[in-house]
């Protein structure tokens, strides 16, 4: 008898996909491949998501994770809208991506905690308690009198910098470990893709990374979605909102440490203008994200807990950020300080849990896109 491949279906994995937003309809897929045809972002060779639907039905975890394709998918939902069986390939791949983030998470237990609504309170409690303890130790656990100055009367810059830099470092370590594991799996699984690992199509890695960043800045790939085409614009707003705020933060560090100029800064200052404009862009962006999701719910589904947790955190950050500034200027102290506290909590949540929340999609997708260009997986140019 000929040697066969022994396939070991992981049934728990299948159940988990269905629970994590893939839906009970996963098993209804009958492999007609309508999805692969209507998808505008798949390569033509071994296209997704038809093969991923089969792998998901069979619980072939390693094939799904160690493959760049789940991240080449941009969740356009063209596949879901045209699926003759209501099997929602878009949602299934979204669920698999979430599980992949969890799979590569370091430390692993945080991956589970952030992705599971059961642990939401616990996940929230950590940054809340940490900040309460610090503020308590500083003796600032009250609404201060007089002019509102957050740094002087509530949370000194040195405390903020220490906590958030540590959080960022913690996240970076998580990312580095996770991406390293993922990259190794990608390399190991490369025989499933078109060309061999050695066949580089676009030259050295640094150039490919730069290419990929340029592609990303224009959302060229994302714009190919049909059913949910409006998503690329709102996503771009959110992204550039964050970029603007990151530049603002760096700028503020220069003011503080290089020029020894302490906050609050006047509204007319160019750094302040950039910060406020970026915040507004982020607000408009995230509101559009929510509107798009509601508008497309019929065809593309509403999204999972994982998606909404991330959306809510971003929304909380931007609204409390703007409100902290407005309430400070209006001198409404009894609201300003609590709102600012929520702002601090949500930013810390975003920073510390970045490798475990949907925020991680940024890094994993980038890695997968770079890999697919590097390994010759891509046969289309975006």
């Amino acid at each position, binding site marked *: 008898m000929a040697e066969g491949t022994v396939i070991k279906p992981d049934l728990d994995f299948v159940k988990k996909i269905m629970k994590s937003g893939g839906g009970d309809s996963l098993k209804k897929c009958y492999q*007609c*491949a309508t999805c692969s*045809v209507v998808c505008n972002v798949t390569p*033509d060779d*071994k*296209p997704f998501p*038809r093969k991923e639907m089969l792998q998901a039905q069979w619980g072939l975890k390693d094939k799904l994770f160690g493959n760049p394709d789940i991240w080449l998918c941009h969740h356009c939902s063209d596949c879901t809208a045209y699926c*003759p069986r209501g099997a929602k390939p878009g949602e299934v791949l979204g669920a698999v991506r979430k599980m992949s983030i969890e799979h590569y998470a370091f430390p692993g237990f945080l991956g589970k905690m952030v992705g599971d609504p059961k642990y939401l309170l616990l996940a929230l409690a950590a940054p809340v308690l940490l900040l309460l303890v610090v503020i308590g130790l500083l003796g600032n656990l009250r609404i201060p009198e007089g002019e509102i100055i957050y740094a002087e009367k509530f949370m000194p810059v040195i405390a903020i910098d220490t906590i958030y830099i540590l959080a960022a470092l913690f996240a970076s370590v998580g990312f580095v470990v996770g991406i390293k594991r993922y990259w190794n799996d990608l390399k190991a699984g490369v025989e499933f893709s078109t060309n061999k690992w050695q066949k580089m199509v676009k030259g050295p890695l640094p150039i490919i990374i730069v290419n990929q960043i340029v592609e990303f800045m224009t959302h060229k790939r994302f714009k190919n979605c049909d059913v949910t085409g409006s998503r690329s614009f709102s996503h771009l707003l959110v992204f550039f909102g964050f970029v603007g705020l990151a530049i603002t933060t760096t700028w503020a560090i220069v003011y503080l440490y290089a020029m020894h100029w302490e906050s609050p800064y006047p509204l007319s200052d160019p750094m302040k203008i950039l910060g406020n404009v970026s915040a507004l862009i982020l607000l408009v962006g995230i509101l559009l994200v929510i509107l798009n999701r509601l508008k497309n719910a019929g065809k593309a589904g509403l999204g999972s807990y994982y998606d909404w947790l991330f959306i809510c955190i971003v929304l909380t950050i931007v609204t409390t950020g703007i409100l902290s500034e407005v309430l400070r200027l209006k001198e409404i102290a009894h609201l300003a300080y609590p709102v600012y506290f929520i702002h601090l909590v949500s930013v810390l949540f975003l920073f510390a849990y970045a490798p475990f929340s949907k925020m991680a999609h940024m890094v994993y997708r980038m890695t997968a896109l770079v890999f697919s260009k590097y390994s010759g997986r891509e046969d289309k140019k975006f």
Partner: protein
Amino acid sequence: MADEITGTSGTIMVVGGGISGLTTAIEAAEVGHEVFIIEKNPYLGGRVAQLNKYFPKLCPPTCGLEINFQRIKNNKKIKWFTMTEVEKISGSPGNFDVTLKQNPRYVNENCTCCGKCGEACDAEISNVFNFNMDKRKAAYLPYEMSFPQRYVLDPSIIGTDTARKCKDACEYDAIDLDMKPKTLNLKAAAIVWATGWNPYDARKIDNLSFGSVRNVITNMMMERLAAVNGPTQGKIVRPSDGKAVGNIAFVQCAGSRDENHLPFCSYICCLASLKQATYIREANKSSKATIFYIDLRTPGRYEKFYKKVKEDANVSFVKGKVAKLEEHPDTGDVTVTAEDTISGKKIQKTFDMVVLATGMEPSTVSEKIPGKGTYDENSFVVPGEILATGCVKKPSDVMSSGQTATGTALKAIQTLVRR
């Protein structure tokens, strides 16, 4: 005809004069029961009359229909009404009261099918028998072998000079322009609903671009194209430029087995495409046919037919559903995109013409039974007080329609006896 038509306590009314309705009616009449056939069209024969060839023996439809028409003619127990629709049903099994509406044909029994009225007629209408692929005169015989052999005047010309010209051309005093719609009342003991199916509207499958890509047709249009009495006298040519089709693709499950369209399998489309592949292969020795499918369903003995077609090297099969069709702007050729799931490659192939294997929508989607009808979730009739047979009950081929129609005749007779 009198406005009150008398059915006896033992009358069976069969609604729909296609192969199922005819069979039920004839089987019941031949064992001695009085039967009324009610048909909406000006002819009997239904969908089968539109086919080029039909299973299982691949005969032309006239073959089987002619025998049935003969049996009707020879049986005094059967009364048939064309251009007639059921308006209302009340009562219950054993004692139904039915209101019928008969539309005017404007041509009476004197018609000899000499064709003079058609020659004189200067107005043309879209030919629905050929799925609007051509036009016909507004004074027309529905199709060569149509039963009854009697012309029809389209209501659109009534009151015009054209109608007058048609009447003047008739040498037999067969045209009566004063005919009016009639309401008829009928008593029946049993009712069999056999109104059949309509081809699913391919326009609704937006990614298959039917209606915008010119050389995409449906399988029922293909039957008319291949039929000698069709719009092209049996030459399989494409709509955009009349070019003979040498390379054709069939798109299976076009709307069927699809929750966005018809969630069920339409049963006949796989065999229809295999059969139509033989049309083109027989017409042109060098022609090629490609069938894109999810699964090929060839029930029972039809597997043999599939194997026979498969032996032909010029017929190829691709396992993967077509989800995109595009027209080449210069040549009018059609590019098909599918994933060949065996090789795992998304492929594009170009064809002269593409046939969508559209499925069966029960006629009760658009026209419900005007009485106590019961339906399943897809609007197929579930037999209850009103019996049902044929494709309005379940998608079927001609052969099983015939078999179940005989069974339904027995059911109807039981209703009469049980009283």
